[in-house]
């Protein structure tokens, strides 16, 4: 349950400023690390700023959402929600420059399938990367398996994510049972679903409990459809006397809605510019662990392995047509 979950204890923050702070810190930490290492060509201008990282983050997040939606077999919504939450949490404490979002995004989806018991074999999973050849898919799989443990570690091993979908169902059942004033709650379902999909692309999951998000979704859709649901909170939830909690609820809902309004899809030209920068950072300073693994072999005379970097790694364009 949410009230005793690790999500409430460790991954629910008070306001957006603290989130921004964490992201800036992650960015700064990476910069300092690179500056201290003293590699050639290191200077402040090469690195991405926090807001630039933000743009790229949103771009890759949308990519992840599209990948999950095009997934075969059909991925349940909770799995998608969990994957996006993992992505968000990971980049709360890490910089995009250190771990390329392209890899992390697939790992998030893979891990979320496992955690949410949506059983997909690894071959089936990489089979969904339709643009790749079989060899490319295998390489992708290798990378996924390599970084999986890192992802789990950066999530602090808190793998259970409470998404707003089940609370939404619960609230609908409750409305149907206890609130006969609203005639047909089912008619709201589609717009509620829409709202919830859009809300996962914001930071709300890290700030509010999923039941509050679900409540916002329902009340919002009701008001959009012109139906009044004000008395639901006061009557059924027993909040008539408890003005303070009622005010807090309204406040939370307002904040969620404002977060949603603030969200905008990243602009393509910005994205491309920053992507170029990111690629360069990864190419120059990225520690490709494949190199490390094969280093042992280079000492043997008869096993001559070329460093993996020279092979063509799968790029963003491969995911384009998903």
């Amino acid at each position, binding site marked *: 349950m949410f009230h005793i979950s690790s999500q409430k204890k460790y991954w629910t923050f008070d306001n957006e400023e603290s989130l921004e702070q964490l992201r800036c810190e992650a960015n700064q930490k990476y910069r300092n690390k690179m500056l201290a290492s003293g590699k050639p060509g290191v200077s402040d201008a090469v690195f991405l700023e926090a807001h630039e990282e933000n743009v790229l983050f949103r771009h890759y997040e949308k990519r992840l959402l599209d990948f999950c939606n095009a997934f075969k077999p059909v991925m349940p919504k909770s799995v998608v929600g969990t994957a996006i939450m993992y992505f968000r949490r990971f980049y709360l404490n890490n910089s995009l420059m250190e771990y390329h979002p392209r890899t992390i995004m697939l790992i998030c989806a893979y891990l979320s399938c496992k955690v949410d018991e949506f059983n997909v074999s690894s071959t089936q999973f990489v089979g969904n990367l339709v643009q790749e050849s079989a060899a490319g898919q295998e390489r992708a799989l290798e990378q996924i398996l390599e970084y999986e443990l890192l992802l789990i570690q950066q999530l602090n091993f808190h793998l259970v994510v409470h998404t707003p979908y089940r*609370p939404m169902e*619960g609230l609908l*059942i409750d409305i149907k*049972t206890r609130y006969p004033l609203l005639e047909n709650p089912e008619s709201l379902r589609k717009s509620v679903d829409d709202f919830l999909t859009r809300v996962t692309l914001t930071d709300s999951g890290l700030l509010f409990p999923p039941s509050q998000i679900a409540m916002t979704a329902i009340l919002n859709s009701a008001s959009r459809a012109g139906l009044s649901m004000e008395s639901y909170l006061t009557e059924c939830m*027993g909040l008539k006397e408890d003005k303070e*909690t009622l005010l807090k609820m309204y406040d939370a809902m307002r904040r969620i809605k404002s977060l949603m309004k603030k969200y905008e899809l990243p602009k393509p030209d910005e994205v491309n510019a920053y992507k170029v920068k990111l690629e360069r950072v990864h190419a120059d300073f990225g520690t490709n662990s494949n190199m490390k693994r094969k280093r042992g072999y280079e000492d043997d005379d008869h096993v001559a392995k070329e460093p993996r970097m020279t092979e063509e790694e799968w790029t963003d364009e491969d995911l384009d047509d998903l």
Partner: protein
Amino acid sequence: MDDQGCPRCKTTKYRNPSLKLMVNVCGHTLCESCVDMLFVRGSGNCVQCDTPLRKSNFRVQLFEDPAVDKEVEIRKKVLKIYNKRDFDFSNLREYNDYLERVEEIVYNLTNNLEVEGTKQIMEAYQRENRDIIQKNKAKLTREQEELEELLLLEQQGNEQRRLETLQEEQRQLQAKRKSKQALLDELERSHVPATILLAQHKDRAAQLETQIEKQKQVVKTTIFSTGIPMGQTVSLLTVNRLEEVLYHYQPIHMHTYGPPVPELEQLGRLGYLNHVRTAQPQDMAGGYNSGLACHRAIQDAFSGLFHPLG
């Protein structure tokens, strides 16, 4: 089977595992055939230590190590003389001293140390405590007889029970045969239709069975299941009562930060279950019912609704 062969014929023991080993007073082993062989020739000396032997001194070996057998024999003889028991002494220390003396004597005789001296000590003791020895001997024999009597009784009881059950079975078989015969006779003679006769016969058979069952249950109980005979008064030591603080159950109180959730059992009555997909027979077989899914959804919906502060 045996670690050594017979010292005389050496080979015969391995070839014939059923051959028994005999032990004599000097502690050396000889197989049965060798013993016979030895006394046929009239000579009565042990092969290894050359002590004069008599045929009666040979006993079947019980232990693997012949030295143990020898000690057992010696101990039996010594304890025939030194047969005092723990209540013959005024305190524990004296009893232990007495036991130690006995052990020393046995040890000396077994390992052939100071045999003469030890024998003299034994004789002296025997002379001094002649009457005590006699009394103890008498007591011992009486106890043994009592034990034997009890064993005999138990055996007799078992025998009787066995016989009784056999007789019972016999009687039952006979009764069944008689009723069958009666049925056949009636089928021959009487004019009543066959089905009614069969029904009557079945009734009678059923009655007979219940009678037999009742008889079995009326077995007299003379002893409790633990073996204590009924009617015997057993004295129990008073058990110390331990007074401790009684445990008070405090139900867990969980703060859900949300409105109260209805109980699982109430869901049907409150009408929640009408809005949940009904469980299919396949689901119900596994123990699932729609209330479980409904309850979980409601719990998730209400949990944390009033966050951050309750």
